[in-house]
């Protein structure tokens, strides 16, 4: 009898179990808005900007700042999907930059040790942020806003302490390339990658080169490689792993997730640690790149990172979003920031663009979410 029932139900419902149409499936992707934004911005600059912008060297030009922001935005997007904010990432860049530079220059530690210490320190700060948020039950918005100021202040104080009165710490590059071991790690975190390949390509007339035979682009800046790797890893973790499912669950409804056996506290704490770790990585990359650190490093990056994540489809309420979307959001930023210099448009329009883009993205995301969840 029961099997008969089931069989009947199955045969009746079978043809109603149709595949969702392609459009709907595309609409369901959180990255859709970011991809559309990228297309619009690209078309705009192809029309308006000097054609050198989309030459290989031009692309590297705007991808480098996009990569720095992108690493922060990917961390922010994971945390936002998990239902929390971190407003302290910008200050975290400055503070971990100070820690890193002080380790290398003031204390004179070997580069790999300094890198490890900096990352470990950032993870500890993330752990603290997470524990405070979880145990006090305060909104992460407030807790990390406090740390935005605390860390920025500590960076200023610490820099003066480490340098004897200045707010800039120089000489990182010299101190970080003293031994062969240091140089090896320096190559991973600074400069260009694939330089040999680019020289070979130039020698064989496969890419543009200067009259003296040097390639116009000597390699791919390492931060772009880091950015691509982290974006791929984050996207895979978020969409394909158990931990990723737990991130969605923790952000979607922490109580329901807990009832289903998801360790919500551990997931959220680890996300704060990842976000802080991303900030530390950006600090290491930028400090090595410029050879110095200062207290203004990472200024307002927390907002840009969150905006990139929102453009990438993250909902402010958590439980929905995409790491790839956040990466694309960061590329849009880089493209506009640098792209304006290839046009006759005043560069300060960048800020106007930032605000407008945020407003549009949130508006668009709300519509999409209603479509996705059938909310009425």
């Amino acid at each position, binding site marked *: 009898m029961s099997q008969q029932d089931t069989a009947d139900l199955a045969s009746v*419902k079978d043809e109603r179990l149709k595949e969702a149409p392609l459009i709907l499936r595309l609409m369901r992707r959180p990255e859709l808005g970011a991809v559309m934004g990228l297309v619009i911005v690209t078309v705009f600059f192809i029309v308006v900007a000097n054609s050198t912008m989309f030459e290989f060297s031009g692309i590297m030009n705007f991808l480098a700042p996009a990569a720095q922001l992108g690493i922060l935005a990917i961390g922010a997007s994971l945390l936002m999907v998990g239902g929390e904010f971190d407003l302290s990432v910008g200050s975290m860049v400055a503070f971990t930059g100070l820690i890193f530079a002080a380790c290398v220059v003031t204390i004179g530690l070997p580069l790999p040790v300094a890198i490890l210490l900096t990352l470990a320190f950032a993870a500890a700060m993330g752990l603290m942020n997470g524990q405070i948020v979880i145990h006090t039950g305060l909104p992460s918005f407030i807790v990390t806003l406090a740390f935005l100021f605390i860390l920025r202040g500590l960076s200023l104080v610490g820099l003066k302490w480490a340098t004897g009165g200045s707010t800039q710490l120089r000489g990182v590059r010299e101190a970080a390339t003293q031994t062969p071991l240091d140089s090896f790690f320096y190559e991973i975190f600074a400069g260009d990658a694939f330089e040999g390949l680019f020289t070979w390509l130039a020698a064989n007339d496969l890419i543009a080169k200067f009259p003296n035979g040097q390639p116009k682009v000597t390699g791919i800046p390492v931060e772009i490689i880091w950015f691509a790797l982290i974006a791929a890893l984050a996207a895979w973790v978020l969409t394909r792993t158990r931990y990723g499912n737990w991130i969605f*669950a923790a952000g979607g409804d922490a109580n329901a997730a807990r009832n289903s056996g998801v360790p919500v506290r551990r997931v959220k704490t680890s996300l704060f640690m990842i976000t802080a770790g991303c900030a530390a990585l950006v600090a290491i990359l930028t400090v090595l790149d410029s050879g110095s650190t200062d207290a203004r490093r990472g200024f307002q990056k927390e907002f840009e990172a969150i905006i990139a994540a929102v453009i990438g489809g993250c909902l402010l309420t958590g439980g929905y979003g995409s790491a790839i979307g956040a990466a694309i959001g960061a590329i849009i930023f880089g493209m506009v920031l640098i792209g304006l210099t290839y046009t006759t448009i005043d560069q300060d329009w960048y800020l106007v663009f930032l605000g407008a883009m945020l407003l549009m993205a949130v508006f668009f995301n709300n519509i999409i*979410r209603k479509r*996705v969840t059938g909310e009425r």
Partner: protein
Amino acid sequence: MASSSHTPLVEMRDIEKHFGSVIALSGVSVTVNAGEVHCLLGDNGAGKSTFIKTMAGVFRPTGGQMLIDGKPVAFSGPRDALDAGIATVYQDLAMIPLMSVTRNFFMGREPVKGIWPFRHVDFDFCDRVTREEMKRIGIDVRDPGQAVGTLSGGERQCVAISRAVYFGAKVLILDEPTSALGVRQTSMVLKYIDMVRKRGLGVVFITHNVRHAMAVGNRFTVLNRGKTLGTATRGEITAEELQNMMAGGRELAELSDELGGTV
């Protein structure tokens, strides 16, 4: 299918639960057999919630005994109850509207494959199982990737129940599954409860709607003020008698007179 001669899946004997000076349960006895829907009726504050939470391992009973397959047990948490095969579908369902049906179905129990750095959730398997389970209960899921938020209340209830069944529940506690649903949705849930029963599970169906209870119940236990008012078997009792027992009989009769027989 009648299994009254067999050992009950779960037997609760004279369960008492005190919260400080408040006596929430003072001697409640209920047995749940395989292939049977045991309806637990009672008005608000009768102790239904306390009782099922005791059964689900959320509360430790102050007194009384709990037997599973004839053996005494003492749960120290909901995990123990779950391991013993007692699954509870609470009113808020533990479902996340923004996540897909598949992701909800396997939340917290995702099957993984691959070696550690590459270990990932076997989503092909998950989608297939979800699709099959949805088909079995006759829910029109266009694809398992659609968000739970797009399902109706009754469908969500059915997904929550089928999730518990799929993960090996022997006894299912349903906390007012029909209380917030319309007529069609209710009949859909009741039909599914009947299917679950036919698969040999024991179901504890909490409700304060006598008609819903009469539709699927094999046995009916009425709770009032933390006590069992008695257990009746289907056919022995009418809906009206159950209704009267729930409201404490006399009070309702008086009220009925006052209102001219409309209750």
